[in-house]
């Protein structure tokens, strides 16, 4: 009959209304600032720059190659390459001095959390953070994060994304091992035959 559906609907909402007072299960709301959900490990919001050792400026892994700047879809990274080189403080560049970013800024308000910068970086130097409360009342300076604000120790990465960090550390260790093995092999081969060593190095690269 006409109107039955409406009455059924009314009963349903009434059940919800009273049910929400009696059963906590119905209320799925998380009362955010007081209660927080545990973030899944893959959560990502905004990139940070990884540094090793305990000096954020010298320990930055970034070599200012600008790949991420070019690849970032909304173009929110801006890097100035240094004129001089700094010593390999992290020990991942086989001791060779490297360029470093004089300026490394990312605009929080433009970044779209796509993680492309992380994917393209060949040096495991930039990773995604999961901190999400980034709002500020200073809408000009406060949204442009400089390299000091972006710098985070590797231990932070290990803490928030343990699986990825383990992979990244393993990759670096492998690279380092290879780099260490190379001069040793070269030293062994050099006295005998200098030419094949060069060819071998070329193929290796």
């Amino acid at each position: 009959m006409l109107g039955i559906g409406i009455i059924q609907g009314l009963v349903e909402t009434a059940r919800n209304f009273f049910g929400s007072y009696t059963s906590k299960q119905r209320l799925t709301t998380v009362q955010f600032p007081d209660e927080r959900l545990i973030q899944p490990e893959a959560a990502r919001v905004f990139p940070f720059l990884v540094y090793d050792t305990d000096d954020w400026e010298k320990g930055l892994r970034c070599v200012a190659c600008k790949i991420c700047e070019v690849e970032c879809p909304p173009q929110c990274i801006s890097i100035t390459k240094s004129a001089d080189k700094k010593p390999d403080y992290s020990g991942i560049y086989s001791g060779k001095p490297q360029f470093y970013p004089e300026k490394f800024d990312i605009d929080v308000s433009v970044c779209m959390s796509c993680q492309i910068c992380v994917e393209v970086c060949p040096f495991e130097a930039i990773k995604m953070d999961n901190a999400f409360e980034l709002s500020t009342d200073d809408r000009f300076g406060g949204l442009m994060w400089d390299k000091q604000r972006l710098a985070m120790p590797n231990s932070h990465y290990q803490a928030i994304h343990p699986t990825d960090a383990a992979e990244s550390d393993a990759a670096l260790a492998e690279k380092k091992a290879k780099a260490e093995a190379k001069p040793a092999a070269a030293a062994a081969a050099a006295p005998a035959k200098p030419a094949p060593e060069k060819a071998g190095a070329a193929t290796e690269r």
Partner: protein
Amino acid sequence: MTTQAVDQIFVTIKHWLVLQSPAVIQPAVSVLLSVLPLLIIFPSLFAVTTVLERKGLGRMQNRYGPNRVGPYGFLQPLADGIKALIKEDIVPVGADKLVHFLAPLLLVMTAFLEYAVIPVGRNMVVADMDSALVFFFAAGAAMEVSIFMAGWGSRNKYSMLGAMRAVAQMISYEAPLILSSIAVVMIAGSLSTTTIVERQAGYWGVWPYHWYVFTPWGMAGFVLFMIAATAESNRSPFDLPEGESEIIAGYFTEYSGFKFALFFLGEYLGMFAISGLAVTLFLGGWAAPLSFLTFIPSWIWFFAKLMTLIAGFIWIRGTLPRLRMDQLMNFAWKFMLPMTLVVIFSAGIWRFMPSGIVRWVVCAIPIVLLYWLLGRALMGGRKLEKRTYRFAE
């Protein structure tokens, strides 16, 4: 203090205050003292209702609703009010400045006018007119003008669409609204709201036997009246004029800041007024629902009934989705109108039959019959089926 003194406390205070003032300004003071409490009470009721509504709707959707400002979120309207006040007031360049400015004021003013004839307690009515009902509906019709002014003055297509929808809807539903109250007027023999309340007074044992809602025509009339009232006050499911998802708030798209808040106020005031009228016409006005409860002051009963009806509005809003325009019009002209006509017919029979159970049954028959027939005819043999979504699943 006797219960009667408590019941009449506001009336007594007013008389005393009027007598204290110099004779020349006594009429003015009297008017002021009648009007001012309404100007304070109903907007505060609006504030309370908004937070209750949001909490209630939240609970119906298994959410908490606002619970941050003040204890249990009850200071939310204060925060909203401050926010509305300090917002920038934007007037579109192409707008008709005067009309754009006047529309919200006119809406609130006409809504307040309607309260003049609603008795909120024993001897508590601003203007005890003989033609109170006519006045009420006339003031209600002026609301349509202000809504159209808002839509026209904004110079915005969405506003215009919203305003045209609003006018079409309000005029269509005004017919059943007025026709269903005509039944009451026929039985009470008066257009005066105070007389209508008096006619419903008295108890049979403990029961409020004379309330019009307890007659077959009154019950049907009450339901029809409330449906039409929902449409008149642009409440969901009849909120097509606003239709946030289609025309971005309709006629008040171009309003911001406090003018926007005024529209909300006007809308809620209209809803309170029309619920107040429903209480007066069908639910015995300020009378207590059971004879032994008469010691509670009449004005408390009036507001209790009013809030019950408002709760009904909120419940409906939490349940039904918005109608389509053709459904809206079909419902008004093909269902509501014939139903109200048969309610008037039934009230006519009621008037001329001797009271008793036979009268009750005889009066109920045409209403139930037409309801059943209309239900069948309008469905047109179609069956409601569970909708299946081909791609979503």
